């Protein structure tokens, strides 16, 4: 679901950095309020957990599998701001140390996956879990997959409109919303079902302990 480096214009990623910086500042305040002196080790371990949860396989019918995102699980267990901080650090380390992802796309990926995805997951869980715990967990996992895909499709889809040559040729991502929305959102609507099921299993296993 990550946006790859090189397809976003500076008109997109520079404002995204400004918005994300505000989010990171707020997340730091929330973390300091909630996590006392164990802030550093806890955030470090959660970052590692987020990194490895992205390696957990999401089985698909037919014997194949894809990587889970784990955002729904992290969001239900730790809340959106801690998830946002941990996912942002994961993306930073992936870009700088492991050479995956990229620095221009980091704020968009962090905002879409870490903040919007986890906030949607938390909201859905809070609304639904008093009615049905399973429905709340499923919705959290599903929305944590679909909402970032929708946002990333929107960001990619507006690139031809905001960055193009005088004769209208694109300079970054070439396809408009009519292509990006179905191409990204439809598969993630299906993948979200798997993520929702995994969220139910993991959180219920954790609660039983």
């Amino acid at each position: 679901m990550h946006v790859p480096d090189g397809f976003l214009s500076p008109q997109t990623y520079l404002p995204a950095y400004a918005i994300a910086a505000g989010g990171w500042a707020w997340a730091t305040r929330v973390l300091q309020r909630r996590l006392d002196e164990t802030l550093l080790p806890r955030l470090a371990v959660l970052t590692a957990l987020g990194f490895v949860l992205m390696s957990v396989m999401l089985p698909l019918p037919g014997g194949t599998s894809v990587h889970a995102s784990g955002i729904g699980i992290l969001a239900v267990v730790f809340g959106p701001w801690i998830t946002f901080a941990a996912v942002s650090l994961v993306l930073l380390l992936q870009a700088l140390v492991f050479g995956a992802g990229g620095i221009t796309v980091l704020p968009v990926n962090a905002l879409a996956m870490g903040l919007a995805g986890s906030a949607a997951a938390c909201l859905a869980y809070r609304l639904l879990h008093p009615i049905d715990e399973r429905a709340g967990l499923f919705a959290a996992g599903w929305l944590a997959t679909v909402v970032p895909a929708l946002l990333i499709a929107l960001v990619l889809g507006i690139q031809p409109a905001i960055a193009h040559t005088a004769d209208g040729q694109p300079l970054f991502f070439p396809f408009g919303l009519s292509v990006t929305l179905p191409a990204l959102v439809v598969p993630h609507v299906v993948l979200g079902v798997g993520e929702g099921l995994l969220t139910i299993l993991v959180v219920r296993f954790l609660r039983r302990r």
Partner: protein
Amino acid sequence: MQDRLLLLGYAVAVIAVTAVHNPWWLTGGLLVAAAVAGRRAPAIGWRALGAVLYFNLVISVGYAARALFGQTVSIDYLILVNVRVYLLIFLTFTLAVRVDVLRALNFSQGLTYLATLALSQIITFRRLFEDLRLAAESRRLRRLGLRESYLQSAAAAVHLFDRAEHDAREIALAMRARGFFRPDAGDDARGH
């Protein structure tokens, strides 16, 4: 200091690469990046090619296919976007090889500690996750059904949560034992 300068140079180069829309300039930038990478340039080049090949091929073929529907297709765009994406990935891989990120981040003590701890935990968790995967692989005689696969993935995730909780507690205790959290601990406790 050198690592920090290289990190800063990388950030400036990345912004410049996305602000330049001339493929010749970007090709020139690629040559400069190859010179910075030194003897590792061929290896980085192949690795970068592998990383961009699939996605760029999909985008490029999809864009070129517009011609079939009578839409305008620009060869200049295809060259530009492919050179730009390749250059950005090449720069990122060069950074990962040439720069000690932990040293580059030492302008902020908190960020350095956080990155150091997170990286050490990532290495531990990846090894643990691979052990779990291999253990599951070695114990099965047939392909798992969908339900079993989900239970296995969930069990691995739960084990990682347990390990995370345990490690966070252990690291906090170890840091406290070394006086890290005392406000008056100063730089001595932090190893300076």
